[in-house]
């Protein structure tokens, strides 16, 4: 969605080709067929190849097929170099657990694990996320078989509207993978990159501490 929106923005700036403009509008009946062939200059994008020589560069433009390792599965998507990991998850791979709110790396709703570390998926390009182990909130547990953190969020009523919840669950999970016995201060610090506009922080912190206790078997 966002790319289409951006295409429209570009057209109003006057620095875009007529082709992209029509594609942005999305409804050009007579020209649709032509557009399809004209824009599908697909490139295979893999993690940096072994350099043939020191002067070698890999150039990715237009539509790019990215291969991503998400929740233990190899997935592919046809995106542009400018497409963020978040937009790829949500708009191309039907993984809508990570939420798009600020889209500027401030709110934390899009938090996913990349190589087991929490990152903002809105501030990482999909082409740049290849070759890494990506875990979204969907990869942590299911409604039938919740992870200890997810379960603790339910038990401690750690949400109000729920929109920030996936991000907090991922941040708390990352903390507990690193620190089995966190203090309240550790939890606050681990959640410092996530914002809850409803203000349910005390319950979130309680849930994280309870999940830690449960995971230690205490």
């Amino acid at each position: 969605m966002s790319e289409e929106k951006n295409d429209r923005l570009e057209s109003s700036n006057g620095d875009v080709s007529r082709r992209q403009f029509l594609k942005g509008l999305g409804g050009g009946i007579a020209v649709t067929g032509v557009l399809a062939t004209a824009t599908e200059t697909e490139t295979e994008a893999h993690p940096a190849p072994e350099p043939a020589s020191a002067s070698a560069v890999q150039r990715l433009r237009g539509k790019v097929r990215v291969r991503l390792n998400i929740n233990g599965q190899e997935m592919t998507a046809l995106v542009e170099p400018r497409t963020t990991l978040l937009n790829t998850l949500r708009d191309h791979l039907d993984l809508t657990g990570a939420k798009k709110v600020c889209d500027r790396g401030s709110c934390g709703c899009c938090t996913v694990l990349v190589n087991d570390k929490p990152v903002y998926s809105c501030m990482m390009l999909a082409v740049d996320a290849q070759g890494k182990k990506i875990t979204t909130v969907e990869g942590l547990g299911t409604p039938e078989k919740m992870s200890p953190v997810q379960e603790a969020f339910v038990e401690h009523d750690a949400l109000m509207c729920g929109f920030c919840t996936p991000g907090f669950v991922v941040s708390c999970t990352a903390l507990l993978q690193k620190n089995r016995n966190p203090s309240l201060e550790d939890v606050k610090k681990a959640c410092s990159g996530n914002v809850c506009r409803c203000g349910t922080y005390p319950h979130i912190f309680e849930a994280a501490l309870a999940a830690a206790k449960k995971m230690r078997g205490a």
Partner: protein
Amino acid sequence: MKSFEFVNPASLRSAISTLASAGEKAKLLAGGIDLLGEMKDYIQQPDIVVNLKTVPGLNRLTADRRGLRIGPLVTLTEIAEHPVIRANYTALAEAAESVGTPQIRNVGTIGGNLCQRPRCWYYRDEAVVCLKKGGSVCYAVEGENQFNAVLGGGPSWIVHPSDCAPALIALNASVEITGPQRRRVVPLEKFFTLPTQNVLQETILESGEIVTQIIVPAPAAGTRSHYMKVRHKESFDWALSGAAVMLQLRNRRVAACRVVLSGVAPIPWRSPEAEAVLRGKAVTPQVAMQAGQAAMAKARPLGKNAYKVPLTRNVVKLAVLKTAGV
């Protein structure tokens, strides 16, 4: 964000030649936190984005008797958690830990932290063509300037956003810069430039040049350091005011020192005035306060940022006391 070509260079040489031949049309991407933010807001609209992460060897961090060698792609989390840096280069670990959020520090790099662009909201507003974007006016002068500079301002009044830069300057760090023609090593203090020199950029980097290493000499015996940062919002924010302090104590007296401020000037602001107060003295609350006063003696606040003057005086005082363990 505007569409662009994404380039994965296989070597430093090809990264530099790609950057140099494309000139203003290309931007270098490390962690991407700052650059993608600018591109989403159309502050930067490169045709080519050169990915530094495919260049081998730039994410190395070594700590030995000579000191630290930090590759530009080392993340802020790695620096903040490194046991040797925490013990012997404390100001740097504290500064790295104070940047952004866990999610930002896990991706954000030390090279990107030094080369990030200003946070002034006029600069960051897509609709405003301010002095730093080739316009003719610094809107902060008459505008909402509560977060702008009180030292070294003019003709632009941005403050430099880096926390790590003041800490590294306090620790006498240098940067290695590699470009199309040459490789040069420059004291980090000389890496940053005032708006009077070139209002469109904050560093001495020329076209095609890349920061390829940060070099921190091993601290002399008796050296301690600390970075203190005051923020508008405690959970995460840029500095309203901060101070990186390095003290080398001999027989309880200051044999050598550096005081470098963040959040108050267009560059990380070294204060020779505060250092002169401290040199040769035993650190007491009174001496620390005098250092704070000396640091801000030449401050010239704008309409809405006069609070930064007493704030910074006290930040310097507290940072000096904490460093000295008083």
